[in-house]
């Protein structure tokens, strides 16, 4: 038991790695989501095709395959990444592909009449997007982004398979070193759940702040 409490420190280190992965992965995912999501709505065929290929590829092949590819195959092509970089890259690109569809859907969910109002007011495409469509779409995206972030948090557990010392991995280590299975797994389940709660709480309060006075926006 005393030994176990000592190993708790190890698990907390893992939690730090998990949080780091989740944060950095989310940032990458967010960037990719907007690039690809708006790319899919572009007037230019090439951009649309690129965005579609990215989205379908990363949603189509499993995150595991992507992770192993980034970790083991990319270096053979001369691109070597640290496990953390590999993890962030695979997670960010994967979740980014899902979130891109959220961005696209949210932009499209802004009614056609809003686009028409922009035309009637002679706003340019980008002006309308920037000042009218995106601010409304953002509010629609937010809750789903929250879910995406939780999916990303959960997906970080698979990086343990490429030896990145995240929460799940440290639980495995502790288990090997102490011979106790129940404790480490129960502990990390609770930690994951608390982290997920923090994300959804954060997104909800962000949503509340943004939604002030906007009863009309949500569909």
């Amino acid at each position, binding site marked *: 038991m005393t030994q176990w409490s000592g190993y708790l420190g190890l698990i907390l280190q893992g939690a730090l790695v998990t949080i780091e992965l989740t944060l950095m992965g989310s940032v990458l995912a967010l960037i990719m989501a907007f690039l690809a999501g708006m790319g899919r709505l572009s007037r230019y065929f090439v951009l649309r095709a690129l965005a579609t290929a990215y989205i379908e590829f990363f949603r189509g092949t499993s995150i595991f395959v992507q992770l192993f590819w980034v970790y083991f195959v990319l270096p053979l092509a001369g691109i070597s990444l640290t496990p953390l970089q590999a993890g962030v890259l695979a997670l960010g690109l994967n979740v980014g592909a899902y979130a891109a569809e959220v961005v696209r859907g949210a932009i499209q969910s802004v009614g056609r*009449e*809003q686009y*028409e*109002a922009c035309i*009637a007011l*002679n*706003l*340019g495409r980008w002006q309308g997007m920037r000042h009218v469509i995106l601010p*409304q779409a953002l509010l629609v995206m937010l809750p789903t982004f929250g879910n995406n972030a939780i999916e990303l948090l959960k997906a970080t557990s698979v990086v343990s398979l490429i030896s990145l010392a995240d929460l799940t991995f440290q639980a495995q280590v502790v288990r090997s070193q102490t011979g106790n299975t129940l404790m480490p797994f129960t502990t990390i389940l609770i930690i994951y759940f608390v982290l997920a709660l923090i994300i959804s709480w954060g997104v909800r309060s962000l949503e509340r702040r943004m939604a002030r*006075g906007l009863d009309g926006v949500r569909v």
Partner: protein
Amino acid sequence: MPAPIIKVDAISKSFGAFKVLDGLSMQVMPGEKLALIGPSGSGKTTILRILMTLEKIDGGHIQIDGEQLYHMERNGQLLAADERHLAKMRQKIGMVFQLFNLFPHKCVMDNVTLAPMLTKGVARAAAEKRAMELLEMVGMADKAKAMPAQLSGGQKQRVAIARALALSPKIMLFDEVTSALDPELVEEVLNVMRKLAAETDMTMLLVTHEMGFAHDFADRVLFFDRGRIVEEGKPDEIFRHPKQERTQGFLKKIIAAGHRV
């Protein structure tokens, strides 16, 4: 006699296999107030949307203020208009929608100032001053800081009118601007429009089912049916002595439907 400000020449428009406008022609004089009436689906909204460049046309020509709308002359050739030409032409036209289409995430003031600031580079202070005058005119000055969601339908529509006016268009298009309002709120919007008709020399095209208002408001009434203008004339002629059978039938139905107390 001055040149017409709108000249529609044999335009046609189909949605898929369905022909909505069929070789439609019409002319509107500067300052004229026109009412477009007719049964549902006859193409009234479509012609307004075409003038606002919200729909493309399949054939024909439109001239606004002497310039081609959907075409541009380059080296003596008529080319399809590009986005820049359309943007230039749109400066002459404003539109008010049935469902207001206010920007829900911006307050009343920002709704009105957004377009002048972005499209004409008007400074914020100047834009707000002008917006205040317009809001004053539509009786919404005290709600300048309110969000659209806090307004009643009639108030929203008045803001939408102010917003369209802020770009000082020469032509204003109104598509059933009161039909989404509760009966009690209709009057406040119609009052604004009466004032507008009386005080400005803007050209106005109005689609409406409010026959009483059309009668008082319009210099000329066009009766649409199946994508064509079946009959046109002074309000009194059309409403009291329609010549065409379709017009008579339509007016009878509207009256029978209880649109009087």
